[in-house]
């Protein structure tokens, strides 16, 4: 089973990376950019009996390792 986990910073948490990218894009002439927030993607292959239990398992992985829930949110999506 394939899944994608997306981890993003919570609202209000400073994102120095996003800020630096914003500045750089502007410097490269991309003038329309208003904001950039950077996050992480994990493409996970796992064996699970069904997508419901896969999702639950992935959520546990996020809570335990993939996301820092103090400052990050996560979203899990089963792809196939």
């Amino acid at each position, binding site marked *: 089973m394939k899944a994608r986990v997306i981890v993003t910073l919570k609202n209000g948490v400073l994102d120095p*990376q996003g800020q*630096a990218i914003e500045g750089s894009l502007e410097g*490269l002439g991309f003038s329309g950019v208003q904001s950039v927030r950077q996050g992480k993607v994990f493409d996970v292959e796992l064996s699970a009996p069904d997508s419901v239990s896969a999702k639950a398992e992935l959520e546990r992985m996020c809570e335990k390792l993939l996301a820092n829930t103090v400052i990050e949110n996560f979203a899990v999506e089963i792809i196939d």
Partner: protein
Amino acid sequence: MKSAVVVFPGLNRERDMIAALTKIGGTPPALVWHKDAELPEVDLIVIPGGFSYGDYLRCGAIAARSPMMDVIRERAEKGVRVLGVCNGFQILTEAGLLPGALMRNASLKFVCREVKLEVANANTPFSHRYAQGQVIRCPVAHHDGNYFADAETLAEIEGNGQVVFRYTPETNPNGSLNHIAGITNRQGNVLGLMPHPENLIEPAHGGEDGKGIFAGLLN
């Protein structure tokens, strides 16, 4: 022999590099800020280590896309020597002046320690002060020094003698392919090097093994 050290915001080993170039070459290098309108005519351009733009996005990525890098690319094409150390190496790969990429260390941790380097090609302007196969000491200090290139590129740089320095297998600090620590471009006038020879150039540093690189370039 005139040299210049180019500084992008966030670089932090420029003072170490200036000290090394000054001590070994006798004259201080020109200090060039990335936004300066001009890069003076020099024989050696050095991009020192550090965390340009915080190493955000990818190490060296943002600096690599600055206008100053276009100037450096032009000079390199004309044969001017370019040395990128640590973040400088990462900037050179991101800018496409050197092949491959530097990925996160296999340990995922920043590592600062002394390693051993084998001189894999002593026939370059950067390494001719050393003997072929000589093993020297050198410190590393980086988070992303794990050299990667696809098989074809790797075969090519190996075949061309572009690999100039390798970690001895038991001291490879980052998992880099073929223990690569430093490579040149095809023409041999641009060197990227993860370790920091500038931090081992005088007895107070506990050794002078790094001196040869600068001595070979500057004298």
